[in-house]
């Protein structure tokens, strides 16, 4: 091939911008903010990939998508091919392209990014995923039934990823969901303007086409236990991906006032229960006029932006550290700023004040400054003496993380760690043989893609446990470890068998 080798000087220098709804207009609706790339934009952006030989982006991806290969397919306008490459490792590109924190993953280590802005890998992934949904593509491989049944607890990202891998390996997979619709945090947590429900439903429909069955309204642990799944329900293995889901509060005075709620409650009412369409939907929500959201993670950004769309006059983010330490995706903070969220960095709430009807009236805060680094490596915020102040608010939303959900601990013999999360080994096996766990219920609150990575890792563990051949070859280093399994060199494998025989 006589193609000229691409260099950092020959590629398009500017990152291709993506069309977005106007900030002022979108702050009043729940339609998606980013319109995504069109074919020309995607092709131009794909040209920016240098196809560098060391492929840091692949290592930066928690599920190891072959990024240069799919980007190359886009440059060739072979979009179905790009889709097939992505779905080799990630069945949910339309979701991950939207919600992954790419700046800390693939894009964060992109070679182009050392000199220019990195290749917009997330937007390209979304482009491919959306096109697949639009065109009705699905990569349904030929599946040889393996004769095993696997039960999955929780239909969020971890459960979906695990279910997909096991279904492809020929297992009969049933996914149990406690809520009335599958999707977990993608449905109840992430708002439509960031991840439209139709996208989730389309991806779930693809999983159904793999033969996966979703059973909603099923609270595992209470309706039947993990142990019963292995005995009476006849599952050969179980994966637990229930999510962390037990929101934290700060323990400051006034938290039980009316108008104080967790971000989970606000988002669930608004997204899953569609309280934003009250009274056409029955779930009520009393939107605040001046909303304060405590925290600066992705959930906090969602709560802030949902509040804006519900018609608040002022929406304030309260975070005790500075913008640099905020855990949210850069894009989310940027979008929130554009839409008019008022950020109060280095501010910590100390008391919520109520009126005579026990409704929130104001929030008392103290200014913080950054001191010495703490165990997380971030500089610890310390209060500035005498800097207390009050501001008026009628709704306070806590988005400061979650604790471990206690239901499975209460109802099974699963060993938990000190913090109440499910204890697992390196392969995500729990203390019960055949039961694997992954995602937030193991690690505490993390990201969608990390949960998917955990779901896939557990699927590999389950396949090994069931004695199924694992045809996935995702991680180079994993291949390396297989080649020296039991300390025997790969080439000596036959020799070892001979000796044993």
């Amino acid at each position: 091939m006589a193609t000229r080798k691409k260099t950092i000087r020959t590629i398009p220098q500017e990152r291709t911008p993506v069309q977005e709804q106007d900030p002022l207009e979108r702050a009043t609706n729940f339609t998606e903010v980013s319109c995504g790339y069109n074919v020309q934009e995607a092709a131009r952006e794909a040209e920016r990939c240098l196809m560098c030989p060391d492929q840091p982006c692949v290592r930066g991806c928690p599920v190891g998508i072959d990024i240069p290969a799919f980007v190359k397919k886009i440059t060739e306008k072979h979009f179905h091919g790009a889709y097939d490459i992505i779905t080799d490792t990630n069945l949910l590109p339309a979701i991950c392209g939207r919600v992954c924190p790419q700046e800390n993953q693939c894009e964060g280590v992109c070679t182009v990014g050392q000199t220019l802005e990195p290749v917009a890998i997330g937007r390209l992934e979304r482009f491919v995923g959306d096109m697949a949904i639009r065109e009705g593509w699905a990569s349904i491989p030929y599946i040889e039934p393996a004769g095993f049944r696997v039960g999955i607890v929780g239909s969020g990202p971890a459960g979906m990823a695990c279910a997909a891998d096991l279904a492809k390996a020929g297992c009969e997979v049933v996914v149990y969901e406690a809520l009335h619709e599958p999707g977990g945090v993608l449905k109840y947590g992430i708002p439509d303007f960031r991840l439209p429900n139709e996208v989730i439903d389309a991806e779930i429909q693809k999983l159904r086409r793999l033969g996966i069955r979703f059973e909603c309204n099923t609270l595992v642990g209470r309706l039947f236990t993990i142990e019963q799944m292995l005995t009476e329900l006849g599952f050969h293995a179980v994966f637990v991906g229930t999510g962390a889901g037990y929101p934290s509060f700060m323990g400051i005075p006034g938290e039980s006032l009316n108008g104080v709620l967790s971000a989970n409650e606000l988002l669930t009412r608004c997204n899953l229960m569609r309280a934003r369409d009250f009274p056409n939907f029955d779930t009520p929500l009393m939107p605040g006029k001046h909303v304060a959201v405590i925290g600066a993670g992705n959930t906090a950004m969602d709560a802030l932006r949902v509040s804006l769309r519900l018609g608040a006059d002022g929406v304030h983010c309260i975070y005790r550290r500075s913008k640099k330490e905020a855990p949210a995706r850069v894009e989310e903070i940027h979008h929130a700023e554009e839409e008019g969220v008022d950020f109060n960095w280095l501010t910590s709430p100390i008391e919520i004040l109520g009126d005579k009807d026990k409704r929130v009236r104001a929030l008392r805060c103290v200014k913080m400054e950054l001191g010495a680094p703490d165990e997380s490596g971030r500089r610890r915020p310390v209060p500035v003496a005498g800097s207390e102040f009050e501001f008026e608010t009628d709704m306070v939303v806590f988005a400061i993380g979650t604790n471990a959900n206690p239901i499975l601990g209460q109802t099974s013999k699963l060993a938990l760690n000190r913090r109440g999360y499910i204890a697992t080994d390196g392969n995500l096996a729990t203390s019960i043989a055949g039961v694997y766990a992954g995602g937030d219920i193991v690690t505490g609150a993390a990201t969608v893609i990390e949960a998917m990575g955990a779901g896939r890792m557990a699927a590999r563990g389950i396949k090994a446990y069931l004695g199924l051949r694992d045809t996935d070859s995702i991680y180079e280093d994993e291949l390396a470890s297989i080649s020296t399994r039991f300390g025997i060199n790969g080439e000596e494998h036959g020799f070892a068998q001979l000796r044993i025989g």
Partner: protein
Amino acid sequence: MPNNVPASGYRIVARQDFSDVTYLLEIEHPLMARAARPGQFVIVMEHERGERIPLTIADFDAAKGTITLVIQAVGKTTKEMQANCTVGTRLYAVVGPMGIPSRIGAAKKVVCVGGGLGVAPIYPQARGYRESGAYVIGVIGFRNRDLMFWEDKFRAVCDELIVCTDDGSAGIKGLVTEGIKQAIAAHPDIDEVVAIGPPIMMKGCAETTRPHKIKTIVSLNPVMVDGTGMCGGCRVKIGDQVKFACVDGPDFDGHLVDFDDLMSRLVRYKRAEQEALERFQETCRLRGTAETEMEVTSLDRPSTDG
């Protein structure tokens, strides 16, 4: 084990109306009928646009494969269910059993107190204690004789039954706290009191037993959404701790519960709930007048009856 989830919802197999406001629904759910224990609750959605409402399980029958709910039509959803949920119709979602089952401990003599909407859910507890060999004193309270139900069911599982009505039209005149006082006076050796009902009633029960230092368990039913610990809407103050009623309860030590906090939090969505109820009643009125003409589409949602 049979597949528990029919694709089209959960069938209502029996219904009984105790009064204008109180009705019983028996719902087919074989797995839950087997798993349910006294003190647990379910979350019900009538249709796909409905809200999730928590309801304490009033009875369960593993042999028949059904669970029983007794519902008071007080808000939009419960009134709408009263109008629509006839035998053979299906509920869109029923999930449970939720919450930690009541600990039917080694108590030798217990008082099971149910008031108003709490009468039905106290029944499985009374039966549970009876089965564990305890001496069970039932105290059930209603506003008047017309609202009474399940007296026979309670007589069958209680060694003594004290019926209380506000107007004295049946049993003794007075609140259930009067019944508790009577029981305490007659039995100095009561180990435990279990009370279910409106928060103000449970508060009264806890205050009645406090001077006697009798262990008192109450079942809390605050506002919740998912019922699995995820939203935190149901948080309640228990002593100096904050607990989630859905996964840490619903049973708590009545002497530690901050009932005033619970009651002020119960009215959080009152304005919206009132609005929904008025809208619903207006729609019903309109439908009532228009019924002769044609099927009215003003209830802007698809029927989920089928």
